[in-house]
């Protein structure tokens, strides 16, 4: 029966992927992409990769979906046709896509057979201070990679802000949001954030020992802020506000300081003394989650735009 389950899941995954790529119409492709992310997270659960499933549900189906929907809305407003009307196939684009897909397939086929690092991991894990092996790899064994990744998000946000117009630079971020006071949207914006906040903090906290972590929790916290902002209940900030700059760099900064502290003691750069490793990882995760939440929320809201009421 589990074989049948996996077979149905694979058929649905392939079907949504093909529908997103081959179907006509941008909006339909976006909706299929969202459903694809949802099915993919079920697939990761079936592969017992719950950490990845959480990230896929939050980023793939969640934030990327809303980002694409917002982009679609903007395209339809800027020009009358968000939908290309030519029926033919764009040959150069098709060729490049096929080439990229072929290269990826080749790279996948020459990858070495993955081996589960059971013995090494079982030996090293007790010294990491956390029980979730994924968190141990991300924040202890390969902390250097994670530190650089946390800076990449910041670079993406700076790139996005550079797209803002000069004359709008002093404005609040994103298009002005408004909703009928007491309406469905407003009540939604009041009910959802407390629940989401609890889930986000829970995911960060539980990440030490169970699937979860800074990235998944931070994405949920970003979504919480987004819902409140979209419902018009909170005003997005301006670029120049230093409190938000502090929020953006808090995670990488705490991470870096912890690394330097390790280098000054005898644990080495980004190494933590065994006695406090668990606490150190939790503190870094909390700071990273806060920065990831602010960065992702700003990335979805977009660059500053005019028209905000004061």
């Amino acid at each position: 029966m589990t074989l049948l389950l996996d077979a149905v899941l694979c058929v649905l995954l392939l079907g949504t992927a093909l529908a997103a790529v081959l179907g006509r119409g941008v909006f339909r492709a976006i909706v299929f992409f969202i459903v694809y992310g949802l099915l993919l997270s079920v697939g990761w659960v079936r592969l017992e990769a719950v950490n990845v499933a959480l990230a896929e549900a939050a980023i793939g189906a969640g934030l990327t979906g809303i980002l694409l929907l917002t982009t679609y809305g903007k395209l339809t407003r800027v020009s009358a046709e968000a939908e290309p009307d030519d029926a033919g196939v764009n040959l150069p684009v098709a060729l490049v896509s096929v080439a990229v897909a072929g290269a990826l397939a080749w790279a996948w086929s020459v990858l070495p057979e993955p081996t589960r690092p059971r013995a090494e991991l079982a030996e090293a894990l007790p010294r990491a201070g956390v029980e979730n092996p994924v968190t141990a790899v991300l924040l202890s064994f390969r902390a250097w990679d994670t530190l650089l990744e946390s800076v990449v998000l910041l670079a993406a946000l700076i790139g996005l802000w550079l797209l803002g117009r000069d004359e709008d630079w002093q404005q609040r971020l994103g298009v002005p949001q408004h909703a009928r006071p007491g309406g469905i949207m407003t009540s939604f914006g009041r009910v959802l954030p407390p629940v989401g906040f609890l889930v986000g903090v829970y995911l960060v906290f539980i990440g030490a020992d169970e699937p979860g972590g800074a990235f998944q929790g931070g994405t949920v916290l970003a979504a919480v802020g987004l819902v409140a902002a979209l419902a018009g209940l909170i005003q997005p900030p301006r670029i120049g506000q230093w409190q938000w700059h502090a929020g953006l760099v808090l995670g990488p900064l705490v991470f870096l300081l912890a690394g330097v502290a390790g280098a000054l003691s005898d644990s080495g750069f980004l190494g933590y003394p065994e006695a406090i490793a668990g606490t150190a990882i939790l503190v870094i995760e909390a700071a990273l989650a806060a920065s990831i939440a602010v960065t992702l929320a700003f990335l979805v809201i977009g660059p500053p735009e005019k028209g905000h009421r004061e």
Partner: protein
Amino acid sequence: MTLWLTGVAVGVLCTLGFALLRVWHGPGRADRMMAAQLSGTAGVAALVLLAPMQDWAALDVALLLALFGALAAVGFVKATSSDGGGDPEEVDIGADTPDPTDRNADD
């Protein structure tokens, strides 16, 4: 019990397939989006059914899918409003502006 739960999960995933037909045919944008919401509900149901087999960790994924499904609905309503930041409830009934989430508004 495992067999029974897996069997029901297969059934739920099959109903999800029918929701995908509505995403494909539309015709309106709201039809497609509501079908995606329906498939989200089915995905949550499938994960809850599979959870007892894998130490209940799948419940957290189901929780996230439910939360982000709600966010996607808000994002859709906002994106299809006339200025990108509106709310269909603000539009007066009988006004000239067509409701952007009208089910007949085909994409």
